[in-house]
């Protein structure tokens, strides 16, 4: 399956954020969206999710306009992992993940045995099944991110779209979430995520999409697109490139 944006002009009622953007994401690959604050990352993300209507162009699913799908049909294909937040109500972790099954049930239906099984499998997959009865408000930020990932997986989508999945996590949890993003692609999902850290794109993504002032600066395999010159253009700041002599792995330092 391919989720693609064609000639997108994105933005809100009162202002346009980006123009002439083309994006394509296939199942089984990871695409990282990079760029400075206010450059349009989140707006593009929400447009690809169908949460924002593009002002021009369209988002398609295997060539079919996303807008022709009902909100429920869409949720069964594309799942959204928002930035980690603390909810208003202290729902149990299990209930939060079960909400991922909403699009699979009717308007008046309650979660079925299958819904519970799918949710439990998602919790197991991320190693947080022991948290099932804990209040979502009382677990750590890293655990919350994994719960939101489990909820997305419970939607049984083809694509998972994540908004800065590593932003508020400690170093160890960042690594864990990046590994899970890679694992999602291996299990056949197409993954799109935004990040502030090019190293995270190098670590988890197949391709990178560089967005500045609502314009695509570059797009391609992370190994070729993420270089010092591109990053300095993207962030208008000096960047240093480090290479691990033992493994050949590359990393970038700001400043």
């Amino acid at each position: 399956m391919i989720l693609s944006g064609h000639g997108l002009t994105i933005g809100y009622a009162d202002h346009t954020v980006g123009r002439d953007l083309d994006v394509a994401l296939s199942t089984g690959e990871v695409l990282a969206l990079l760029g400075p604050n206010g450059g349009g990352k989140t707006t593009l993300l929400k447009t690809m999710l169908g949460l924002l209507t593009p002002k021009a162009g369209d988002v398609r699913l295997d060539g079919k306009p996303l807008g022709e799908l009902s909100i429920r049909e869409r949720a069964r294909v594309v799942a959204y992992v928002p930035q980690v937040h603390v909810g208003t109500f202290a729902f149990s972790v299990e209930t939060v993940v079960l909400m991922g099954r909403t699009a699979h049930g009717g308007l008046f239906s309650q979660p079925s045995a299958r819904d519970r099984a799918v949710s439990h499998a998602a919790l197991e997959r991320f190693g947080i099944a022991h948290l099932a009865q804990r209040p979502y408000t009382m677990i750590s930020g890293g655990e919350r991110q994994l719960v939101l990932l489990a909820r997305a997986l419970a939607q049984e989508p083809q694509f998972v779209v994540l908004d800065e999945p590593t932003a508020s996590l400690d170093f160890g949890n960042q690594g864990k979430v990046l590994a899970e993003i890679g694992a999602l692609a291996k299990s056949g999902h197409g993954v799109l995520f935004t990040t502030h850290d090019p190293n995270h794109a190098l670590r988890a993504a197949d391709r990178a999409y560089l967005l500045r002032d609502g314009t695509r600066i570059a797009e391609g395999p992370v190994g070729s697109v993420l270089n010092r010159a591109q990053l300095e253009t993207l962030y208008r700041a000096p960047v240093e490139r480090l290479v691990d002599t033992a493994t050949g792995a590359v990393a970038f330092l700001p400043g």
Partner: protein
Amino acid sequence: MTRSALPGLAIATGVLIAGLLLAFTVGRYPVSLGDLASVLLAKLGGGRADVAPAVESVILQVRGPRVLAAVLVGSALAVAGTAFQGLFRNPLVSPDILGASSGAALGAVIGIFFSLGIVAIQGFAFIGGLVAVGAVYAIGSAVRARDPILVLVLTGVVVGALLGAGVGLVKYLADPYNQLPAMTFWLLGSLSATGTADLLPLFGPVALGTVVLIALRWRMNAMSLPEEEARALGVATGPLRIVIVAAATLTTSASVATAGIIGWVGLVVPHLARSLVGPDFARLLPTAAILGGGYLLLIDTLARTMAEVEIPLGILTAVVGTPFFIWLLASMQRNWS
């Protein structure tokens, strides 16, 4: 569902049963539990109870309608409060704070002013409540602020004040000998004038609104998430929000049209219910409905027995509710993001 909802539900049911027994037996004309049982059994069996006619009349004609009305009004306000709190993602909102009660009150007062029948008063109350909540919500979302919840609550207070002025105007224009005392007494909140004829117009809207909300109970969990998240989960938030607001306003306005403004029930009971069964609406809504009925029944029994003259219900619920709100506000500061 490993953590059982049963203990919490059992406590709520216990409160309701205790409220029912107290309300029927306590009062100026004490009734024994035995008399109550024989009258109710005889009524169910279609026969005659072996008690004094006065006792039967107290149970069936005097206390019966009032007890049923208290249960219905309490449930209605509790269910509406639960729904509003979820929908606006804010445990501090309630039908009175969002303007539903004052809107319904203005509608009902206008109905009384024109000497309309109970069904027309109900209709006016519903329209008034709906317009008020719609206005509060529209203004609250048009004002862009860092703290939208605070804006919403403040808007509710402001719109409520304007509607209160409207109620004041109608009272000023009302006939001071017939209409004004009725309006004043009714606005303070009371069930003392409730008769059998009031029950059906109360029951219909309350049952309809409650059934709709309880049917949507699982969806309401997702509705309590941030809007975009709920939509990404496949919830058509726009139409669903209208249905939920209409259902909650329907139950609120029906109870206002019958019993006047009884504040704070819609704030206090959802919290008590949440502490019993947790925030999952699938359990919370039924529990709040049962607990709300018992809660208002207990307060109404207090209102008619604690002093020589009957104390307006709205005054007692405010005496309980205001300290509760302040405590809530203080404890929320810690975990408000």
